[in-house]
């Protein structure tokens, strides 16, 4: 186990496989509040990194910092390329995608249309194309729907929901849809913010399966979670944040045994 406070920058470089996503010394301020300071971590290809920590520790803020949605300090490196200055919207095409803590959909589009909308980069037709080559566009649109349906099915959103509006489908399916939309047409790294929140029973099992399946496809995943059973069973490594700083980093077993983490986060009663 490594206590992060002692961790040297050198140990980052010492790793064998180059990380797919690494952040260095991330810091975010909201007015007087230092929401994030000196946070560094990395994910390796095909791994799942868990981020845990008490409420308000800065986990979601950390995502916003990585995806350039807030003003921040530090560095973000994606697949060997420094993407610190890349605007948020340009990250998706480089393979970095994320979901939000609250469900986020295009409310007035059906589930399938939602999916088609996020697949436009791969399946959309340009405006001139639509004007001058209507037949080609039609074919592509049909292909896009098929691709969207396939992608949804893969993400465990059943076909019977495809023509409903996102707010009308069961909550568990909504979470899956959120993940599907975040993942879009494909990604190198997928960042999920409490995907299991509000899930139970069946849906929880489906989520675990899905995460496993995605990882097996070579996707790297970062997961923020409060569900310890889930995170401990799927994560390869775990980062613990507390009050905007790194409290610990290690394997699930190491984390579960860490006193500081038990005090700050897990509680000792169980």
């Amino acid at each position, binding site marked *: 186990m490594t206590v992060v406070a002692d961790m040297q920058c050198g140990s980052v470089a010492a790793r064998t496989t180059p990380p797919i996503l690494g952040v260095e010394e991330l810091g975010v301020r909201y007015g007087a509040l230092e929401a994030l300071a000196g946070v560094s971590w990395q994910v390796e290809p095909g791994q799942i990194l868990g981020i845990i920590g008490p409420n308000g520790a800065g986990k979601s803020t950390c995502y916003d910092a990585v995806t350039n949605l807030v003003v921040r300090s530090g560095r973000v490196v994606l697949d060997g390329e420094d993407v610190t200055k890349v605007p948020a919207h340009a990250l998706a095409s480089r393979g970095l995608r994320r979901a939000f803590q609250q469900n986020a959909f295009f409310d007035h589009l059906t589930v399938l249309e939602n999916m088609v909308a996020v697949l436009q980069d791969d399946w959309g037709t340009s405006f001139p194309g639509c004007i001058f080559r209507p037949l080609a566009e039609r074919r592509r649109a049909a292909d896009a729907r098929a691709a969207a349906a396939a992608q949804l099915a893969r993400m465990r959103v059943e076909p019977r929901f495809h023509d409903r509006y996102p707010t009308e489908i069961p*909550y568990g399916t909504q979470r899956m849809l959120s993940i599907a939309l975040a993942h879009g047409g494909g990604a190198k790294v997928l960042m999920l913010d409490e995907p299991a929140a509000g899930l139970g029973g069946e849906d929880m099992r489906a989520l675990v399966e899905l995460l496993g399946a995605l990882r097996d496809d070579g996707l790297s995943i970062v997961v923020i979670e409060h569900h*310890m059973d889930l995170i401990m069973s799927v994560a390869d490594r775990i980062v613990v944040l507390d009050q905007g700083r790194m409290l610990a980093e290690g394997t699930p077993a190491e984390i579960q045994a860490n006193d500081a983490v038990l005090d700050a*986060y897990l509680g000792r009663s169980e």
Partner: protein
Amino acid sequence: MSARVLEIADLTVRYGGNRVLAVDGLSLGAGEVVGVVGANGAGKSTLVNATLGWSRGKPVVSGRVLLDGKDVSALPTPRRVAEGLLLIPEGKLIFGTMTVEENLAEGATDPGPDRRAYSAEDVYSLFPRLKERGGHLGSQLSGGERQMLGIGRALRLAPKALLLDEPSIGLAPKLVSTVLHTVRELCRDGLSVLLVEQNVKAAIAVVDRMILLERGRIVLEGTAGEMRDNPRIAEAYLGTQQA
């Protein structure tokens, strides 16, 4: 058992053409905590929302809701709230454009002697974290802070019966038990709570009775102990989580 604070009878809810809830009868005694569990989409939220006559969608609701023996089903939502029937909904449960203090500023106007109105200070002593963030806007709070604020907001309105929809969502493990035990504490003062929870393992520790919803119907009902021993519950809801 003590007097019935909340009674629900023949409650049905439809969305479009689908009936998503059909509860024949459910009652809540004074100072009692009743848990509602069930899979996603079983109709748990629908049940508590319909009890308040409230929804973000457009459901068609029929049935009777009695509070302290008085039929409130014809009353609009704010009147039911004034009578002491409170709901902390799932998802968005606080006002993001107002500070924590402002969120807690609204108290019950005239709750009467039998209902306890919590002051803002009472809420802060329940959740010290909120006091630290008193001047911050609701939208700046973390997920867990929002849950605490939501509960605090409801307590300020002097509930007789409190309907809690998945309060543990997004809470750190340490806090889940804190929140649920706080709920349990609240019942000492005679408050009745209907607690919707996915986290059955945590919920079962604090409830007196529990019901299991499946496809909008109550399929099981019993005391906490009975339910814990029920194989159906153990397998579907406790099994994976105990692993």
